[in-house]
């Protein structure tokens, strides 16, 4: 039962342009959302997060938008750089009986930024 979905397995963007990665979730009890970046042979690296009480959070080139009514969030990277090429995972947390140590991940989106 995939509670967090990333429907685009890959995204290709030119350097300097905007990258938009999308994520949908089904569990309305989730109250915290995170984005991780993963390079090959490394563990996921925390990028940015957002609480369900907000609809936007920004950190440098990275902005996450949350639309609770649509159960949708997106990560915007502006401007995109070749070093951003990696797999991006959306994750969610919270809910009835949930532990703070449990994250639910999507399958990831491979972002390729070309010069």
């Amino acid at each position, binding site marked *: 039962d995939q509670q*967090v979905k*990333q429907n685009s397995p890959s995204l290709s963007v030119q350097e300097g342009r905007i990258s938009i990665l999308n994520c949908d979730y089904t569990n309305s009890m989730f109250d*915290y959302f*995170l984005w*991780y970046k993963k390079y090959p*042979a*490394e*563990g*996921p*690296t*925390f990028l940015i*997060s957002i609480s369900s009480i907000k609809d936007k959070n920004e950190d440098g080139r990275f902005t996450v938008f949350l639309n609770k009514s649509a159960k949708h969030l997106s990560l915007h990277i502006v401007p995109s750089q070749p070093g951003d090429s990696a797999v991006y*995972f959306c*994750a969610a*947390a*919270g809910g009835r009986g*949930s*532990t*703070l*140590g*449990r*994250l*639910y*991940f*999507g*399958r*990831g989106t491979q972002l390729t930024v070309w010069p």
Partner: protein
Amino acid sequence: DAGVTQSPTHLIKTRGQHVTLRCSPISGHKSVSWYQQVLGQGPQFIFQYYEKEERGRGNFPDRFSARQFPNYSSELNVNALLLGDSALYLCASRLQETRSYEQYFGPGTRLTVT
């Protein structure tokens, strides 16, 4: 400060064998979680431990077990290995005292079962 460390980096085992994976959290982090990432999927939660007690368990069979030591390091044990256990096993730590959900991952152990 050192991040989360895991050992070994790679491991090859035969079906039916047992394996032990090790994790050391970031200094000051008292909570450790284990995840399994199969190729093409996102990480799947296996366990969370805090203060040597299991605080959460994912949908994994009893062949999977774990423990946490007084220094907050942790071991993941898998018995009677199956081919389907081949995966990247990730350990993550977090600062339990906060309400934050952010977890910090180690590089993982790549387990191959033949």
